[in-house]
C-alpha cells in the first residue's frame, strides 16, 4: 500500500495548504455576505426547510401561520433580534464569532484534503501531476467540475433563499460533477472524434435535464447581495482549485525527486 500512503500524504499537505487559503478568502469574501443575508433571514421569520415543510413555500408567513415542527424550537417564541445569533434553529450549532469561524476553518481543511484525495487519485490514473504548471491546469479542471458546472444549475445560495428539495439537489449536484468530469476526461485523454462528441453530450446533459428548482423564487435577499455572493464564491473557489493543483504538483515533484514514480519515492 505504498502508493496509497504516498498519495494520501501528498493530498493531506495540498489540502491543508489550499484549505487554509480558502478559509482566509472566505473570511473576507463570502462569510460577511452570509452574515448580512442572515439578518434578512432573521427578519423574515427564521430558518426554514422547504423539504421538511412543503406547504410553507411562503417563508415570510411560516413562523406565524404554520407551526411547522422544525421551526418550533426557538424561532416561534423568540423575537428576531433577541434570538441567538447562531445560524440555525435546529440542533447544536457553534457559537458566533471565533467558534463558528474555527469550525469553518476545520471544514475547509478537511474537505480540502478530501478534494485533494480525489484530484491526486484521478490525476495518477492519467500519469500524475508532474509540476506546479500541470497542477494549475488540473486545478482548472477541478474548478470546472466542482464549481462551474454545478453552479450553473444551482447557483451559490445565501441563507433565506428558496430552494428545491435538498436530497434532489444533492443528487443533481453529484450527477453533474460525475458527468462533467467524465466529459472533460474524454476530451483531454481520448483522441477520437465520436468520444469527444460523447463528452460534449455528457457535459451538456445535466443542464438539459435541469437542476431541481424551487416553486417560488421569492426571497427577502436583495438581488445585488446575491450577485455579489455568486461572484465571491466562484472566484474564491477558482483560487482554491488553482492553489490545490499547484501544491499537489510541487509536493509530488519534491517527493518523487529523481524516482521514476510515486511508488518508488519515499516509501
Amino acid at each position, binding site marked *: *500500500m*505504498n*502508493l*496509497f500512503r504516498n*498519495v*494520501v500524504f501528498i*493530498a493531506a499537505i495540498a489540502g491543508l495548504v489550499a484549505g487554509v487559503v480558502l478559509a482566509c478568502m*472566505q473570511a473576507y469574501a*463570502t*462569510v460577511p455576505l*452570509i452574515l448580512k443575508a442572515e439578518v434578512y433571514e432573521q427578519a423574515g421569520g427564521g430558518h426554514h*426547510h*422547504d423539504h421538511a415543510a412543503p406547504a410553507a413555500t411562503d417563508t415570510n408567513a411560516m413562523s406565524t401561520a404554520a407551526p411547522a415542527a422544525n421551526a418550533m424550537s426557538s424561532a416561534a417564541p423568540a423575537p428576531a433580534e433577541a434570538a441567538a445569533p*447562531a*445560524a*440555525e434553529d*435546529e*440542533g*447544536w*450549532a*457553534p457559537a458566533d464569532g471565533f467558534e*463558528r469561524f474555527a*469550525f*469553518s476553518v476545520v*471544514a*475547509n481543511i*478537511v*474537505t480540502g*484534503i*478530501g*478534494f*485533494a*484525495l*480525489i*484530484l*491526486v*487519485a484521478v490525476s*495518477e*490514473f492519467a*500519469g500524475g501531476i508532474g509540476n506546479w504548471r500541470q497542477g494549475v491546469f488540473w486545478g482548472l479542471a477541478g474548478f470546472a467540475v466542482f464549481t462551474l458546472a*454545478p453552479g450553473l444549475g*444551482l447557483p*451559490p*445560495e*445565501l*441563507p433565506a433563499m428558496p*430552494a428545491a428539495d*435538498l*436530497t434532489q*439537489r*444533492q443528487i443533481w*449536484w453529484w450527477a453533474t460533477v460525475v458527468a462533467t468530469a467524465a466529459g472533460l476526461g474524454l476530451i483531454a485523454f481520448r483522441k477520437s472524434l465520436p468520444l469527444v462528441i460523447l463528452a460534449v453530450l455528457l457535459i451538456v446533459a445535466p443542464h438539459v435535464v435541469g437542476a431541481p428548482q424551487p416553486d417560488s423564487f421569492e426571497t427577502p435577499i436583495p438581488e445585488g447581495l446575491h450577485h455579489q455572493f455568486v461572484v465571491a*464564491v*466562484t472566484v474564491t*473557489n477558482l483560487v482554491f482549485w488553482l492553489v490545490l493543483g499547484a501544491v499537489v504538483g510541487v509536493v509530488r515533484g519534491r517527493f518523487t525527486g529523481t524516482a*521514476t*514514480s*510515486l*511508488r*518508488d519515492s519515499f516509501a
Partner: protein
Amino acid sequence: MTTASVSLGASVSSQSRFMQLALVALLGIFVVGFVGFSHIDAVHNAAHDYRHSMAFPCH
C-alpha cells in the same frame, strides 16, 4: 493482471495500482460527502458557512 505498470515500477501490478487509487478517490468522496452533504444537523451547522461558500446544496 500480472503485468507491472510502467509508471509505478516493477513491484506494483496494475490491478493493485487501480485498487489503491480507487480507494483514495473513494476516501476523498466520503470526506467531502460527510462534511459537505451530510443531513445530520450538527454537521450541517458546524460547516454551515463553508457549505454556502462552496455553493453546496444547503438547507
